């Protein structure tokens, strides 16, 4: 079954075609990679899915629901969550608060919450308990009450992942999850991504430059270059594909 389906999506920035008729079909339950050189349109494509970016042609749908008419805040309740290329946390808040804000779509009746009515307090207690166990799972329980801006980089990455999963998504979009990480942190995050996929059953789409992560976790990959699909296949196929090598290393490398 298909989770995310992107058909013929086009985005223009002025005269520049950022995306030209891109097709991506993500099977349910997979870890799907989206790679390509800088400026290939990977993040733009992500933004089309999370509705930060409008497209001029084509369609994006999730489990059969057309995302076209929806706003950025609507897709969360459908089960789509995302992280950002550069960490984008609520920096003055604690780890706990960040995870709790991630549960926004499960907050229940807002009036009951604001007035601390019994129903609101029950819900709040349940949310806090679940946030605590999520922090446990991501190894950030010991910094639950620290402001995230004081946390080390690797911890901030984990907080962002925990926050994204707090909405209980069916599809998780990761925008360069290991950018700026060293080898050890990268393999840790690869482990976490696999865990999210296999244990919690979340379909994952990952945009990444780091080929070691892509090779380690992805079931299938689509390669973009200058806003077009240039290849699709398994990691082994893709990383030896001539068009991909050309896109990354230039034409000379292929003929060499």
């Amino acid at each position, binding site marked *: 079954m298909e989770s995310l389906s992107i058909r013929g999506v086009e985005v223009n920035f002025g005269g520049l075609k950022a995306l030209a008729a891109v097709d991506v079909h993500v099977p349910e339950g997979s870890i799907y990679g989206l790679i390509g050189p800088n400026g290939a349109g990977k993040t733009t494509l992500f933004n089309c899915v999370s509705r930060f970016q409008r497209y001029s042609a084509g369609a994006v749908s999730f489990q059969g629901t057309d995302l076209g008419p929806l706003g950025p*805040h609507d897709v*969360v309740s459908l089960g789509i969550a995302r992280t950002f290329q550069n960490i984008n946390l*609520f920096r*003055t808040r604690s780890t706990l*608060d960040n995870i*709790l*804000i991630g549960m*926004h779509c499960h*907050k229940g009746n807002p009036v009951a919450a604001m007035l601390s009515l019994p129903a609101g307090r029950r819900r709040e207690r349940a949310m806090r308990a679940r946030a605590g166990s999520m922090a446990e799972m991501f190894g950030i329980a010991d910094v639950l009450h620290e402001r995230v801006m004081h946390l080390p980089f690797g911890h901030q990455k984990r907080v962002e992942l925990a926050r994204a999963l707090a909405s209980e998504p069916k599809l998780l979009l990761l925008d360069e999850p290991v950018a700026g990480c060293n080898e050890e942190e990268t393999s840790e995050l690869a482990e976490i991504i696999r865990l999210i996929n296999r244990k919690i059953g979340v379909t994952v789409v990952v945009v990444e430059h780091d080929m070691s992560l892509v090779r380690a976790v992805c079931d299938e990959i689509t390669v973009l270059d200058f806003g077009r699909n240039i290849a699709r296949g398994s990691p082994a196929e893709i990383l030896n594909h001539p068009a991909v090598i050309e896109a990354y290393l230039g034409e000379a490398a292929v003929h060499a």
Partner: protein
Amino acid sequence: MSERAWQILLTLLAFAGLALLPGIIPSFYASLLSFTFTYVIAAVGVNLLTGYTGLVTVGHGGFFAVGAYTTALMAKYLGTSVVPGVVAGALLSGIIGFGLGIVCLRLGGAFLAIATLGFALAIGAILNNWPVFEGREGITLGKNTLFGTPIGDVGFYYIGLLAMGLVMLASWSIVRSAVGRAFIAMRDSERAAEAMGINLRLYKTVSFAISAAIVGVGGALFAHHNRYVSAETFGNAWLSVDFLTAVVVGGQASLLGSAIGAAFVVLVPYYLGTLQDFAYILNGVALIVVLRFAPDGVAGVLVRLFRSALGAVQGRTPAAIAPVTAGRGSQWNR
């Protein structure tokens, strides 16, 4: 004892102290304090929008006026007194706040500040020129009554204290709830907030409405405290500036800060007596000093001192004592 327990204990002590004061101090000071309470309520309202949601307003004096004139006109034409006037003032102020919130949705930073300033000046122009509001002649309110029983200065002091307590309790409950977290999330990162499913338009507008309704409560109480409203007080932007000053100097995103800041902007000009105009200079200096050296305001400094004292007493070094708003201030230059 945990920090939360101390927080609750000290708050209860402060309110108990305020409740005992009228028996000790001359009634004149009780009156000065009940005037301060109305400003504290207004500052709590402004803090919800500016401190927590991160939307800077220089126009909430307009909502103070809406609250004040609602109850004044009701008193004049319908013969009502404090309670119905305050409720109606809060409701009308909240509705107008919702409307202004919608109009200002796409604005942030300095642009929002200017738009809200325009709102306060527009309200001022209406009060000055629309005959029903009596311009600088003003409207005089009768003696305050509570359910038909006349109440004096001391009675009104307790109404003000109770109203302030309720407003603070409500505000505390809101900012600690999922809704309050959504307000703060929008302040810290609009984009991430939206990605978490927070409807920016809805939550900004709701924040505007709640904040306006709270300031309306303050305004209505002010009208009954003064028993007189006129365009002399409400026809300009000074109230709005006072409220913003109170929030910034006292401490953004802090209830304690709202109280300290409001007391500052009320009591400083009062004690300056004939040098009152000097207060504007002092306020300006206070703003600069606070924004430069303690962006989390006087309350932030006090809380940090308290934490390190508590840590010293309990024999442990407090972890990461840094200002809440260190490195923030994005709402001032967005």
